[in-house]
């Protein structure tokens, strides 16, 4: 079987298990699992790869030399952060503001909470600060928002501050001064004095000045992110190096790349490694973008249902939306993150009847791996959406996760009866069906309002549905929305890992700007404005190219894309827009930029909200640079025909649907062939996912092993 040509390796090193995902040149893939080995993750990774390759009868020695590329994503850094097991970091800030980091801007006391708990103040709490107050020192200086020096740097305060931190035993020093993104001189001077002091003390501690990493406005975000760089990211670099070394020892001929928050992959040598803090959830969106490119689809709604949440992301005109000041792990950050909206509604969501209003409440908490009442070993009494699936016959209790877990339909039935059906005065089946209907209605509303809120209509979009629970509900949540197409890849359960393998090798750098141009600006003012923007683009371009040089790419290999962030003067929200120009130097160029902004603004906020009379502000410059890397192939199969092969049919099951028991055809997903048309009512099963084709729909499998779900008129 060594005839398989392995191409792409994607690694997902979780807290307990490491998954490897290996794709061959036919687009086929295998998934391996092994325990994560926290001390040296490369050990667990190799075990996992051995497990994966065993399905193809291959060895690591055979497979690795053939690989074209490998992408790592992992939770080690996040775990280090969340469990507060990072480095002992010292922090230097403005004198007088030593408390701001631990104060968490108040907002960090309820980040990540459900709506109900955000209101319910007795539940609020702060996590311990990454840097406690006793390892924080202040130095005197002030720079204002324009970059003017208000108070000169009191240089004599720096060395004692550094000495005290060293005495406290810190292992790294972070410096973050107000408005340093605007005028970095003081912060860099503090950095240089700190380094000189450390040399004097013969101490080799890393020093991180925020401006060298994240030169963007909002000190809480910038400081947190720079601290994470020192606290969790930099210490994780050795882990990544070990992974890279170990793979090369096994014959790999490429540099391992790491999935980053902006939806691209970066080198393990990248300056800003905190960008790789969170990557798992965005893998699917990256995969959606890649699949969209391959299929020629520009506008995509990516939807993913897992056990705990429903995640949606939009790809418009072939691009992600980026959130530049997101929060993760209950911290506000200044990382560019692929924008995803999440609702706490998944297949494992608990279902309750509110004792006060007698309304059905879904989530926001969920059973997770404990599934629900149908899984006695999970030890849960409260019913979940999965219990309703079981009652209705949508899930085969004997084939859940490929039969690894046996579910108890009778227990699910009794639980739903006691907790839901009887209190509402409905039959068990009607109550279960109602839950699914309600869940899908909520998801559908959410999906619709998200698309419409961005100024689009679903008819302009294709919807990709994946994740373990996605295809169960796809028909329910797209019903009536009129998507151009609805696609369910047959590898839906592994779509996130596929996405990681498909990510670009791309760096993205942001810089805060404040270019104000009035509504009646002169030509000269417009030229000046364009010039400042161009200067920022030049600086960021250089930064991008330097990063690629570390992996041996020359500047001519790098494809650059320029972006700007613009708003009406005085507004607080900007829009990120790709510049339709390669360079901006003239007044005409400036006008092109403002025109592009006006068009986008009118689409997002309605035409009536446009306010050109206020003038414009450019708030940021962004450069994205990428180089060519191998990507997984999309599967390609010969056309077989509309009628599915007999062996794909796995029998018939009774399913309760909209008031009656009906006969559903059960199909084995892997056995279906290109061109097969699956009519309602059908349930297409694979070990990791269940795809439902309900009444009013049909599904057709195309030659790329993607199902197209169609709503019949």
């Amino acid at each position, binding site marked *: 079987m060594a005839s398989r040509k392995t191409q792409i390796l994607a690694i997902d090193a979780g807290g307990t298990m490491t998954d490897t995902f290996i794709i061959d040149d036919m687009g086929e893939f295998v998934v391996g699992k092994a325990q994560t080995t926290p001390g040296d993750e490369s050990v667990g990774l190799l075990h996992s790869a051995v497990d994966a390759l065993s399905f193809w009868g291959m060895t690591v020695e055979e497979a690795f030399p053939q690989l074209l590329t490998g992408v790592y994503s992992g939770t080690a850094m996040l775990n280090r952060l969340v469990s507060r097991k990072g480095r002992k970091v010292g922090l230097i800030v403005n004198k*007088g503001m030593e408390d701001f980091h631990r104060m968490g801007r108040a907002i960090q006391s309820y980040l990540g909470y459900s709506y109900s708990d955000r209101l319910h103040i007795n539940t609020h709490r702060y996590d311990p600060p990454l840097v406690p107050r006793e390892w924080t020192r202040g130095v005197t200086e002030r720079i204002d928002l324009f970059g003017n020096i208000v108070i000169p740097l009191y240089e004599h305060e720096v060395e004692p501050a550094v000495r005290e931190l060293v005495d406290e035993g810190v292992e790294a020093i972070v410096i973050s001064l107000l408005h340093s993104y605007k005028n970095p001189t003081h912060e860099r001077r503090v950095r240089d004095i700190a380094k000189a002091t450390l040399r004097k003390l013969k101490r080799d501690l890393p020093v991180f000045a925020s401006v060298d990493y994240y030169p963007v406005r909002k000190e809480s975000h910038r400081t947190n992110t720079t601290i994470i760089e020192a606290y969790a990211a930099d210490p994780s670099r050795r882990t990544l190096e070990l992974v890279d070394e170990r793979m090369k020892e096994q014959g790999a001929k490429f540099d391992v790349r790491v999935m980053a928050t902006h939806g691209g992959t970066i080198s393990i040598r990248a300056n800003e490694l905190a960008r790789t803090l969170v990557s798992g959830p965005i893998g699917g969106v990256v995969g959606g973008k890649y699949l969209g490119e391959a299929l020629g689809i520009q506008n995509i709604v990516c939807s993913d249902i897992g056990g705990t949440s429903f995640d949606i992301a939009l790809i418009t005109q072939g691009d992600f939306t980026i959130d530049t000041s997101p929060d993760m792990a209950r911290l506000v950050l200044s990382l560019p993150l692929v924008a995803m909206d999440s609702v706490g509604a998944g297949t494992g969501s608990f279902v309750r009847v509110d004792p006060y209003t007698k309304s059905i409440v879904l989530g926001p908490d969920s059973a997770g791996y404990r599934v629900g009442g149908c899984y006695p070993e999970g030890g849960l009494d409260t019913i979940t959406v999965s219990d309703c699936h079981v009652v209705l016959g949508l899930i085969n209790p004997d084939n859940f996760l490929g039969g690894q877990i046996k579910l108890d339909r009778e227990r699910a039935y009794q639980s739903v009866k006691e907790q839901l059906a009887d209190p509402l005065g409905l039959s068990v089946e009607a109550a279960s069906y109602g839950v699914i*209907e*309600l869940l899908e209605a909520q998801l559908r509303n959410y999906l619709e309002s998200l698309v419409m809120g961005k100024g689009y209509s679903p008819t302009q979009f294709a919807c990709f549905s994946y994740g373990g629970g996605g295809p169960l509900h796809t028909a329910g949540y797209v019903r009536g929305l009129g998507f151009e197409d609805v696609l369910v890849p047959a590898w839906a359960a592994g779509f996130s890992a596929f996405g990681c393998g498909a990510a670009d090798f791309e760096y993205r750098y942001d810089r805060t700007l404040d270019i104000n141009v009035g509504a009646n600006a002169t030509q000269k003012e417009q030229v000046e404005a364009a010039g400042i923007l161009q200067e920022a683009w030049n600086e960021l371009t250089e930064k991008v190219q330097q990063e690629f040089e570390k992996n041996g790419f020359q500047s001519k290999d790098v494809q650059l894309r320029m972006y700007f962030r613009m708003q009406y003067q005085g507004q607080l929200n900007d829009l990120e827009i790709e510049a339709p120009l390669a360079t901006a130097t003239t007044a005409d160029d400036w006008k092109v930029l403002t025109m592009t902004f006006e068009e986008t603004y009118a689409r997002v906020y309605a035409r009536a909200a446009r306010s050109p009379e206020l003038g414009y502000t450019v708030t940021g410059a962004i450069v994205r640079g990428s180089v060519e890397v191998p990507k997984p192939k999309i599967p390609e199969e010969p056309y077989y025909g509309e009628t599915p092969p007999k062996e794909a049919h796995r029998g018939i099951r009774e399913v309760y649907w909209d008031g009656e028991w009906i006969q559903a055809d059960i199909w084995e997903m892997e056995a279906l062939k290109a061109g097969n048309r699956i009519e309602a009512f059908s349930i297409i099963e694979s070990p990791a996912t269940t795809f439902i084709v309900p009444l009013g729909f049909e599904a057709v499998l195309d030659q790329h092993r993607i199902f197209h779900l169609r709503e019949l008129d």
Partner: protein
Amino acid sequence: MATRQDDLSVKPEGLLHQQYRRTIGWNGKTLKAMREEVDRLTEESGYYAGLKELPFKQSDPIRFEKIFSKLRGGLVHARETAKRVAASPIVEQEGELCFTLYTPEGDSIVTSTGIIIHVGTMGAAIKYMVNHNYEENPGIEPGDIFCNNDCQIGNVHPCDVHTIVPIFWAGEVVGWVGGVTHVIDTGATGPGSMTVGPVTRYDDGYQIACRKIGKNDILSQDWVIESQRSVRTTKYWLLDERTRIAGCHMIRDLVLGIISEEGVDSYRQFTREVIEEGRRGLINRVKAMTIPGKYRQVSFVDIPYRHEDVEVPPYAKVDTIMHAPSEITIHPSGQMELDFSGSSRWGWHSYNATTVSFTSGIWVMLTQTLIPNDRINDGAYFATKFDLPYGAWMNPDDIRTAHSYAWHFLVSAWSPLWRGLSRAYFARGYIEEVNAGNANTSNWLQGGGYNQYGDIHAVNSFEAAAEGMGACAVKDGLDHACAIWNPEGDMGDMEIWELAEPLVYLGRSIKPNTGGYGKYRGGCGYESLRMVWGAEDWTMFFMGNGYISSDCGLMGGYPAASGYRFEAHGTDLKERFANRLPFPQGGDARPADAGYEQVLQADVVKRDKQAITTEQIFENHDLYLNYLRGGPGFGDPLERNPKDVEKDLNGGYLLPEYAQKVYGAVFTKDERGHYQVDEVATQKRQQEIRKERLARGVPTREWMKTERERIVAKDAAVQVRHMYATSFEITPKFLEEFKEFWDLPVDWNLLEQELEMPTFGSSHRMVNKQK
């Protein structure tokens, strides 16, 4: 939005041009007749609109829930989207905007996230239009836009500006949608949204009384011109208005979409039932969480107007105190009554409130504890009975009253309600729900002039959104966390406030000793030291409690620290900076030490308890301290775990001398400044303090005897006597109870005429003329 309209079977543009009928209520009724009918049915039956049963919900709970979730999700989403149009950090960062959907009669059905006080205020405006026959003149037509911010029509304060849009279906009003934002300036006597100067309605700024400002979805030009000439911050006004209109139109489209899917009859039935459901929901919560009975509590806050830094007309130059006694009665049925009899009279200051802001605003508090969920609508209002004495500060009997910072009294009057509810939770065993009360949500840093960009500007810092929280019965109150009007506190980034205000930060620090002491202490507040920089013709003022704590500890806990002000003018900071000399930085940890003044020369330093001022002129390099308050404590401080005292000392939450005095802590401090509390010695010292307390104490009856003598002799500060005199005058019942409690002579009374104070407003009023 265009795409949504395509989905509808009846096109809104068709509706816009449709000839409206003369009556626009349901089934040929006028809106006024509908209002009367709902009130009558509710009154007669005790159920909203007479709904003893909920047939829709009972027969099809899933569909009912689907409509709710679609409406609620749509409102939240409209708010999130519209918010991004705004320029004001108050709206965009602090989220001070809210959208609510109403019935044709003005009862709220569902509300977005945001400032929930507005579930009722815009409803009051709609009811006003309904009751004043707006359908005849000026007419209510599809595509109309109405605006209101008039306090006497039920608004909280003029800076909450409402945009209200009717929703028509086939020629009938099926409802209204209202949007409100907290604007930065209303063109009042002083700059800032909640300015201190106003003492009458005519100083409060631009007031729009339920005015039609647009037709066919377009604002009238005369309106745009007039409003732009009436406020200081024109750009923000403009974008705030666009924010409100954008949200209202999104929600109107949403409702029309639901009606086309579900049918108008189902929609109407849903709106009625969901309000009745809200009423039942609250009653069930009250039943589950509390114990029936009467819970009494009180609060006060200072009105220090007889001061040279409060520039107001002579009749307003009064030092007095706001009085807010309250009695919560929980009936076995779950019905709740809130009686504020004994409250003091309205006054010539900016802190009066209307009944609607009071009865509606209470939900911002109750959703943080009793009903933390999304099902808040007027049903909760119908489940609660309020007694707000006519003529009191929350129910003025005179149209002249000013309201620009009504919250000063509201937040003070609501703090005791936490204590009442907490006693009920405690009794029922829900000790995790206990909360000793909310902080006084001040200081408000406000002012205006030419800003750092050379524009005329007003500022209103919302750092006040992160005050200390009241202590719980199982843990300390959270530090610098939230505000009673916004549980989702956010102090904002300094770099963002410096974009909005020509004031650079010289400090942002946790303020020790500001949380009330207790077994579990109140959350501490914080403070920001600001230096004026880049401004011209700049003024600022202070707004907060100073002489009085407006909250109170619970079950032995202490109240939070009260406020004070620090400002410095004509400083030598420029020279100090140039010469690398020390200067005020960071916190003013122990105000009595006047630490800032040790490193500062200034022509004028004002450091006193006068925490309310009107506009003062500030030059560049002048200083202003913005101190945000802490929350009250729970339980006897002598029961506090010594380890927690040690943590407080090391964290800078507690000053050492108070660790000794209040907690009886015995501790040492090492050369690195770390404190270590000696547990055994501390316990010994605590025993001694208990003995000292016993030695100092007198039996209650004896104490009451001496206190009674003082009352008979009217031996109290004039501010206290003035406060009581106004309370007695408005509510004879309160006077009788007071006399009975203290066993006073039958003819005992305390009259305002006895006091040497201005009495404008005490006799020439419209008492009982309106009622």
